């Protein structure tokens, strides 16, 4: 069952112009951060969104919760049009959909104790009556496996992994049905990453949460997501069941990305580079398929038209003329 449905979503950011450009009346350029993205998130699943820097994965996440207002397209949550929500209705939506960010230190108020922070989320959204807030804070700390005395302490007193637990507890305070996590473990050491990944999977199973997990780490995506969307320069190039995509990637970019990830297994590199070239500038994206200048299989037609996502069965879609 679809919980969140995105259709034709686009977001552009005006580029900065220098003084010379202003004087010359050079038209203002725009960064095409997200272009025509359509995807569905099913209730209870983990959808991974993966791609390299500048592919638009974080912008897409922020558009879903309206931290950025999209320039086009539609987002519907549980049947309601998210982009049209105002006032109370928008506040109810915000309670349903919460974000967890990469840098928990940057997203936690350094002057508030953890207990106050969680209490604030509970009272702003009137989740429970004021008298029940302390008990609920204790329950939340239990849920993310933090000690009870954490409520009286400040963010700087915690390690990176514990701070991320606080970030997750705050997101969970308002009882959301969907969590959008943007690189939630990228800043953590490997040995600590594992415990946060475990926490996400455990919470999802216990609370029936739906999770959109944004990361550049393909190992994590492979391990914990049910479905994955691969983005390149603002567009989804391939989306489908994780196990199938990792076993038989169809889009040449997905193939290159998977081949480029170093395996944690002793074997000498074969010397073959997974894919040549650099990421093109989103200010001036290539015509046609954005990957064609780097693609080993590209043909003349690839530079002509942007390939649409086409169905390959079983919810698997690929945007490539040749795959």
């Amino acid at each position, binding site marked *: 069952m679809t919980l969140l449905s995105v259709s034709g979503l686009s977001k552009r950011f005006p580029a900065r112009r220098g003084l010379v450009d202003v004087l010359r009346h050079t038209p203002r350029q725009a960064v095409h951060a997200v272009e025509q993205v359509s995807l569905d998130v099913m209730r209870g699943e983990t959808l991974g969104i993966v791609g390299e820097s500048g592919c638009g994965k974080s912008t897409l996440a922020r558009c879903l919760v309206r931290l950025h207002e999209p320039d086009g397209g539609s987002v519907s949550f549980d049947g309601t049009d998210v982009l049209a929500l105002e006032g109370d209705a928008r506040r109810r939506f915000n309670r349903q959909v919460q974000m967890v960010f990469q840098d928990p230190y940057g997203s936690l108020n350094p002057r508030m104790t953890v207990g106050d922070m969680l209490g604030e989320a509970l009272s702003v959204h009137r989740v429970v009556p004021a008298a029940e807030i302390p008990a609920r804070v204790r329950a939340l700390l239990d849920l993310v496996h933090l000690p009870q005395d954490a409520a009286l302490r400040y963010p700087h007193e915690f390690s990176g992994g514990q701070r991320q637990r606080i970030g997750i507890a705050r997101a969970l305070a308002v009882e959301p049905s969907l969590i959008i996590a943007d690189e939630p473990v990228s800043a953590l050491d490997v040995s600590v*990453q594992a415990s946060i990944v475990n926490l996400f999977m455990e919470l999802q199973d216990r609370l029936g949460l739906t999770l959109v997990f944004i990361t550049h780490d393909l190992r994590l995506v492979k391990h914990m997501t049910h479905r994955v969307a691969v983005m390149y320069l603002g567009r989804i190039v391939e989306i489908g069941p994780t196990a199938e995509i990792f076993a038989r990637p169809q889009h040449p970019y997905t193939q290159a990305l998977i081949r480029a990830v170093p395996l944690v297994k002793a074997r000498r590199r074969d010397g073959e580079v997974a894919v040549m070239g650099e*990421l093109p500038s989103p200010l001036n994206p290539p015509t046609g398929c954005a990957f064609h200048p780097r693609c080993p299989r590209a043909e003349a037609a690839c530079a002509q038209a942007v390939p649409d996502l086409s169905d390959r069965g079983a919810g698997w879609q690929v945007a490539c003329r040749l795959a």
Partner: protein
Amino acid sequence: MSAPLLEISDLKVTFATPRGAVHAVDGVSFSVGRGEVLGIVGESGSGKSVTLRAIPRLLHANATVSGQATWQGQDLFAMDAETLRRVRGGKIAAIFQEPMSALNPVLPIGQQIDEVLVAHTTLDRAARRRRAAELLGLVGIASAGTRLDQYPHEFSGGMRQRAMIAIALSANPELLLADEPTTALDVTIQDQILKLMLRLVAELGMSMVLVTHDLGVIAETCDRVAVMYAGRLCETGTVVDVFERPLHAYTRALLQSMPGEGAARAQLIPIPGQPPRIDKPVPGCAFAPRCTLAEPRCGSERPLLRALAPAHETACHAGERLLAEAGA
């Protein structure tokens, strides 16, 4: 392998800080053979970068360094300034994680290569220009002639790291020290840079010490690996030995915590607790408080690095147990 190119013995680095001394590196010994790629891996605060930077004496003045770094019969730590200047950049070159901060933003790339050539070669101006263009070509930067006159901000992240490598290689060094050279790069660019470095090491007959936190990067680039934890060396050995038969409890736990072989969505095996603070000396094994194999003596008796198999050393009291389990 004959006499090692570089031999580090009992390296200790202590930083004087307002809150007291911090023991960042605590008695580390290892060697680098000719043509060898040695990886140093560890999590943040393990002392891996400090170890690397101590070798060419690049640490800040608040660092106290002891031990020996024997380079072709001479101790780098005891070397006079003029000899050190010829070794640094000439025989031993270094590249770092963030090329933008290592490159001079107000000098064209060509001039930054030229500086090294002036310092370490006898080439004349025209020959230096040709050599600089040749170096950019070597690291895969196209249209080198134009690129030489461009500034670092005109290069992409991957191209900047290539330019850094070109600068490092300009005096034909025998040893390249690389500190997290691909950590800031995207995975497809990381793949390109690592393969470029491996190709250059093989073609130019260099040795390399590669510091990284990424076990995958180690597995796919290095011949040997040294695992560090809390300023100490846990284990050294060939990549195959260490990854397939880890003989230190920390190495084993680190490898087990990675997603990979297990079934999809299986719970991962995290390492409990936090890395120790390094502002207090630890009496026993630094990993003991987080270790599932810890014995009573691990808390009091510091394990010494010893070879349990050919060319495979561990500093773990449980080493014999792990060896028996591996069925070696």
